[in-house]
């Protein structure tokens, strides 16, 4: 299975450098891909992975260096040419056309040799490819409204339809649940057997070790190491990535004793979305929400935050029954919601770090005549910049220019600044690198210890298991059970999430809130 040196490499990148303004994004890096290998590329955000991908797909041109395809030096001038050369990429943010049908999304840009669209063929082939992927979608429906996982599936189908020779997968699993990841891996395996070279980028080390043949690590735009999987350990890889040792992540200090009940939810329902959700969150507790993508966990979070209020059910917050119809209302109660989608829902990208952090409480910064106190705003931002170790030259930097991890920290700062009593975290570590992930986990831990109740929605199973005091599992809008830390195992949660029989040792305990 290992890449055999006897095979000729399909793609070689030699001594590539690329600079943007003041940032040296890539500095003399080289990478070789062999047919039929899965080559994992590791590195913190900012290590230069994205830039390398964009050079491979023709979006950027290198300042220096050489690209060799099948032994021939090539110039990749644009995305179209990259496709023709058989290089395709699946990005971490799926690039779909919401108004086009699923089938067209798969075939746009390459299916037609003539100026005409052969609808019959497109639909048939799209169905065939998705069928192979084991994804059931009406390929004639517009892609608008597809979940991230479904979008990802469409992207993968598209790459497959391209019959690529080099497939770049930039965090394809970021939005997939464990079960979906397994499916994806089966697919990657199939592609590998067909001789496709796969450049696989992920922040989830367990996945990397499960699938990769070779592992290359970048740091700060430089090449650090390339090793066979058998020669590398997780610890070693992390050391290469961050240049230092990282302590045990995924480890919440268990709540010493369960605090008083902060939020109590009974029979929360929203027609057509979720129904009969009941649980409690106590002060200082992390309640994990596990489930497959599409299990409607986010919708429960949105209901609690008043974005998409529930139709029925009881919410008791700090002992007082209440209805939450709008985010302002939720904020007044002391609820904060950190969205899963940083770029679309979480941050105003062209605004500064400061402006983003102070946004929810902006009116508090109004001094005389309603004028904003810029100095106070900046102080707040500086405080969080230090507390959360946000890496940026200053707090006036546009948030859009930060790495994912730092953006995530800005989001956290934004909501911590509202001094929440209940913090809803939706995929708090999606798409951020190991180092940042550990830092986020430390922050969550610290917050819980301060007595904040936390709901953590996550598709990263090890994270859920490591960080939660209890785990609520949802499946297709229904609550499948609540597990204590002690009883929550990967197998049992997966079983609940996919609707199989839950292995019975140790016995699941109805947790006061009961099972659905």
């Amino acid at each position: 299975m290992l890449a055999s040196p006897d095979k000729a490499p399909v793609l070689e990148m030699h001594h590539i450098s690329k600079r943007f303004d003041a940032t040296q994004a890539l500095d003399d890096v080289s990478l070789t891909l062999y047919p039929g290998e899965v080559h994992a590329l590791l590195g913190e955000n900012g290590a230069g992975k994205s830039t390398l991908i964009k050079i491979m797909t023709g979006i950027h041109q290198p300042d220096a260096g050489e690209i060799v395809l099948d032994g021939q030096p090539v110039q990749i001038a644009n995305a179209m040419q990259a496709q023709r050369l058989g290089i395709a990429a699946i990005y971490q943010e799926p690039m779909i056309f919401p108004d086009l049908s699923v089938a067209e999304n798969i075939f746009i840009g390459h299916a037609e040799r003539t100026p005409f669209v052969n609808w019959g063929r497109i639909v048939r082939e799209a169905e065939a490819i998705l069928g192979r992927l084991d994804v059931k979608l009406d390929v004639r429906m517009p892609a608008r409204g597809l979940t991230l996982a479904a979008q990802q599936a469409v992207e993968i189908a598209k790459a497959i339809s391209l019959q690529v020779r080099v497939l770049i997968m930039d965090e394809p699993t970021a939005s997939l649940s464990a079960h979906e990841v397994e499916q994806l891996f089966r697919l990657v395996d199939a592609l590998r057997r067909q001789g496709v070279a796969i450049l696989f980028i992920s922040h989830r080390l367990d996945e990397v070790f499960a699938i990769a043949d070779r592992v290359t690590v970048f740091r700060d735009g430089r090449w650090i190491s390339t090793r066979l999987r058998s020669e590398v350990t997780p610890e070693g890889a992390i050391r290469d990535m961050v240049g230092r040792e990282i302590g045990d992540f995924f480890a919440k200090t268990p709540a010493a004793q369960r605090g008083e009940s902060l939020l109590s939810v009974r029979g929360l329902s929203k027609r057509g979305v979720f129904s009969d959700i009941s649980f409690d969150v106590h002060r200082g507790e992390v309640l994990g929400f596990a489930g497959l993508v599409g299990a409607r966990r986010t919708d429960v979070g949105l209901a609690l935050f008043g974005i998409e209020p529930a139709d029925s059910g009881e919410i008791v917050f700090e002992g007082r029954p209440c209805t939450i119809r709008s985010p302002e209302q939720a904020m007044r109660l002391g609820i904060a919601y950190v969205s899963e989608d940083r770029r679309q829902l979480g941050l105003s990208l062209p605004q500064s770090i400061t402006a983003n952090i102070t946004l929810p409480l902006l009116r508090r910064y109004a001094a005389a005549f309603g004028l904003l106190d810029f100095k106070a705003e900046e102080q707040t931002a500086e405080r969080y910049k230090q507390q959360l170790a946000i890496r940026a030259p200053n707090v006036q930097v546009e948030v859009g220019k930060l790495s994912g991890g730092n953006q995530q920290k800005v989001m956290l700062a934004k909501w911590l600044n509202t001094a929440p009593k209940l913090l809803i975290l939706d995929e708090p570590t999606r798409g951020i690198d190991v180092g940042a992930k550990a830092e986020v986990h430390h922050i969550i831990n610290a917050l819980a210890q301060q007595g904040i109740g936390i709901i953590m929605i996550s598709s990263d199973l090890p994270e859920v298991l490591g960080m939660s005091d209890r785990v609520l599992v949802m499946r297709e809008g229904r609550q499948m059970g609540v597990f204590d830390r002690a009883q929550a195992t990967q197998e049992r949660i997966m079983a609940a999430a996919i609707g199989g029989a839950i292995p019975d040792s140790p016995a699941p305990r109805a947790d006061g809130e009961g099972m659905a």
Partner: protein
Amino acid sequence: MFHLPSALRRWETLLLAILAVVVLFNVTRSPFYLRIDNLVNVFELSIEKIIVALVMTFIIINGEIDLSVASVMGLAACVVARLHADGVAMPLAVLVALTVGLLCGAFNGFWIAYVGLPSLAVTLAGLIGYRGAARILLEDKSIGNFPEWFNALGQRPLVGPFPLALIVFFVMLIAAAIILQRTAFGRYVYVIGNNKEVARYAGIRVKQVKMRLFMASGLIAALAGVLLAARLGAVRGNTAEGFELDIITMVLLGGVSIFGGSGTLTGVALSILIILNLRNGMSLANITGNTQTGVIGALLILSVLVPNLVGRLRALRSRMRPATTGPTPQPAQEVEIS
């Protein structure tokens, strides 16, 4: 190789340079340009448009558009005239006209903010509908003979050489700049214009902000309409017809993105100065009619095109030279900093 300091790449700097050229041209070409009465005229002749341009700046930064402003101006002027002709006291008539403007804005705002219709569609309907309402009020009549004090407000200097409308404009300019740059509301306008979901998820009452903006737009358009009535001393059904495109042109030349989320009042103020002085200069040089609008149209295009081309030329040059030299303008793609 020429090196532009980064300040020069900013939109406002470009506008300032254009303004300097226009002023220089005017000064050298016409002996009348620098006369104080002419300089007052520069503003006075378009004062109502530039007042509305201020609130239009907010609307466009917010990611919306209001095509109905000119019709609201006309309607407010017609309301004043109609009520005056029917014997209503002038102050009351003005008050009613302002209320009507506010209601028009609220009507627009309701459909846009609460029903969620695109503002282009709603205000296009408003453009037709409010003009129609103005027609209903005045039919084929022209109403004037306003009280002397009312006409004087529009036609005579109030402080120094400045008439009321000009003072209103400068006060509003300062107020608008403060609101946009220094208050929570102004920040909301930007954030919503950039991405209204982010705003909603931050607990900002997006609908309320939009509603208020359109109400302000209606109110200020009505105020401008009343000022116009005072300046012209008479009102007809077609008063202020067609002003919307001029107003939008001013805002866009000011560097406000039509897609919302960015732009500054400094830019809009500069763009107003450019357009007004350019028009004045051309008028003084006896260039009128379509040629004037054509020149302004060309300026609008070139002001965006030229910096784009220069930027790409520089990018091209630097690409052709070996790597690690000078910085290249590459604003399009995000750069990771970590």
